[in-house]
């Protein structure tokens, strides 16, 4: 029996390839539908042309149907793994589904828990109406709801294009599309980028559609402040021209009126379970994110545990699929073919180099800017804990200020706190510090009542 956690592109591909190799597979997914972040689909009660929102909708539908129909695969939806551990080659997964808890023991586990939008703190980012591009996309693709009427899309990365295109097609006024990085970075990476012509064509088709809606990508601009109106909601953002290190070019600031600003800086891997299971992780030189270390066949540092998709490095749905397929075959003990993965990985690395996050985003912060949203910890408080109380790493800052100790367990602020503390203390964040900010005792805070019913043996 092979257990797969996560039913995004990576998990679906892994389940299918393991099942095709003759293994029986249990696929666990916390969401209500298969597909993950990429193939997010509408409930049957809403009938619209989903192909229009995702050019790749059909291939997702085919894959989902194959997984659902496969005699070797059992699909467990609405089932969250809230904690995991690993002893002597056996992984123990604690799941919760509709108030019922279960313990699954497996000697072959494939983790494919994906990623979420990377965000950066800036003045006003906690005003209702400031969102992530992924969140806005999820509202549209999963609920048929437009997040706002006048939307600004900003941040960096190729993902901004499909989000802006989807919104424009659905009649939303995309009042600005601001990409912080400049075009010349493309030219520097051109040879590697030309590795993947179909992805380049996809990007070009988004640009073409956006032109039809009179939306232009403004490169070298960033949203550096958000403003609220009298009702407390977002009313405008300040956009500025930024240098390649993301410092603001003085005098370039202007206000753009909007009711939603979707701002994302790439993605951050969800390493909650990977951390629980003690999988070796490392900080990527490409984007500074922390990822699960895997070998060529997606094997991790723990025997019998494989990892695939965005948790092993950000690379998009095609790479996630390729990695999932390899992980499934490897877990089943069959031959793997890694040539496709290698080619896609090269392209993914080039993209990450094209869309870096400049260190001087920190110059946008004000003393009163919230850094940890959950515990409402401001920059000023963090500064005090370093300068007056002598904290020199994020872990100590966390203990002094509670930043990163709220409900999200540091998922949103963890990475930024590493950077902020490093700047204030003048001491770069160590890899150990970064890996520890991605670790959390439980994968999801579950209801205390439910927790009380579970005997915890540690």
């Amino acid at each position, binding site marked *: 029996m092979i257990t797969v956690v996560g039913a995004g592109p990576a998990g679906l591909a892994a389940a299918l390839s393991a099942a095709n190799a003759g293994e029986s597979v249990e696929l666990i997914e916390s969401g209500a539908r298969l597909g993950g972040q990429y193939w997010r689909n509408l409930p049957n009660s809403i009938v619209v042309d989903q192909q229009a929102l995702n050019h790749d909708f059909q291939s997702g539908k085919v894959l989902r149907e194959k997984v659902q129909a496969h005699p070797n695969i059992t699909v467990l939806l609405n089932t969250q793994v809230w904690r995991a551990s690993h002893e002597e080659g056996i992984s123990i997964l604690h799941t919760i589904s509709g108030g019922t808890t279960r313990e699954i023991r497996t000697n072959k586990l494939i983790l494919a828990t994906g990623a979420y939008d990377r965000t950066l703190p800036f003045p006003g980012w906690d005003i209702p109406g400031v969102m992530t591009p992924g*969140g806005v996309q999820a*509202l549209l693709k999963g609920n048929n709801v437009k997040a706002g009427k006048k939307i600004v899309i900003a941040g960096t990365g190729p993902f901004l294009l499909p989000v802006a295109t989807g919104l424009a097609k659905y009649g939303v006024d995309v009042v600005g599309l601001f990409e912080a990085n400049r075009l010349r970075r493309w030219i520097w990476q051109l040879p590697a980028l030309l590795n993947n012509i179909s992805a380049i064509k996809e990007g070009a088709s988004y640009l073409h559609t956006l032109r039809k809606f009179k939306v232009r990508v403004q490169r070298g601009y960033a949203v550096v402040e958000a403003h609220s109106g009298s009702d407390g909601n977002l009313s405008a953002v300040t956009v500025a021209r930024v240098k390649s290190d993301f410092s603001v070019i003085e005098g370039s600031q202007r206000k753009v009126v909007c009711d939603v600003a979707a701002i994302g800086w790439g993605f951050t891997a969800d390493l909650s379970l990977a951390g629980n299971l003690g999988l070796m992780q490392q900080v990527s030189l490409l984007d500074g994110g922390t990822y699960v270390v895997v070998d060529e066949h997606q094997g991790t540092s723990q025997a019998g545990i494989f990892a695939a998709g965005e948790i092993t490095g950000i690379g998009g749905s095609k790479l996630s699929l390729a990695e999932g397929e390899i992980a499934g075959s490897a877990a089943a003990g069959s031959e793997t073919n890694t040539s496709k993965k290698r080619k896609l990985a090269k392209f993914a690395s080039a993209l990450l180099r094209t869309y870096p996050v400049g260190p001087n985003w920190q110059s946008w912060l004000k003393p009163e800017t919230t850094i940890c949203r959950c515990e409402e910890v401001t920059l000023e408080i963090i500064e005090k804990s370093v300068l007056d109380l002598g904290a020199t790493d994020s872990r100590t800052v966390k203990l002094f200020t509670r930043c990163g100790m709220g409900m999200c367990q540091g998922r949103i602020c963890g990475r930024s706190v590493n950077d902020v503390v490093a700047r204030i203390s003048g001491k770069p964040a160590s890899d150990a510090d970064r890996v520890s900010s991605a670790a959390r005792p439980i994968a999801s805070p579950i209801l205390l009542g439910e927790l009380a019913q579970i005997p915890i043996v540690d």
Partner: protein
Amino acid sequence: MIFFFENNEIHAIAGQTVGSALLENNVRVLRRTRFEGAPRGMFCGIGVCFDCVVTINGVANQRACLVEVEEGMRVEGFQR
């Protein structure tokens, strides 16, 4: 179907999340924060940030962006 937010009737389609249905009805502020009383709404939209937490049928700290609406559901924001 119909559910209630702070006792106001809200119309939604089955399968939509509480957060998306509220947004469709122009409700963006879901709660106020514990310390500053600052308004908060959906941020990440996929269950990661916990900014959208509301009380649903008396159960606190439910993520509005994940929980799907049910007929007659009673949703309350965190009021100071």
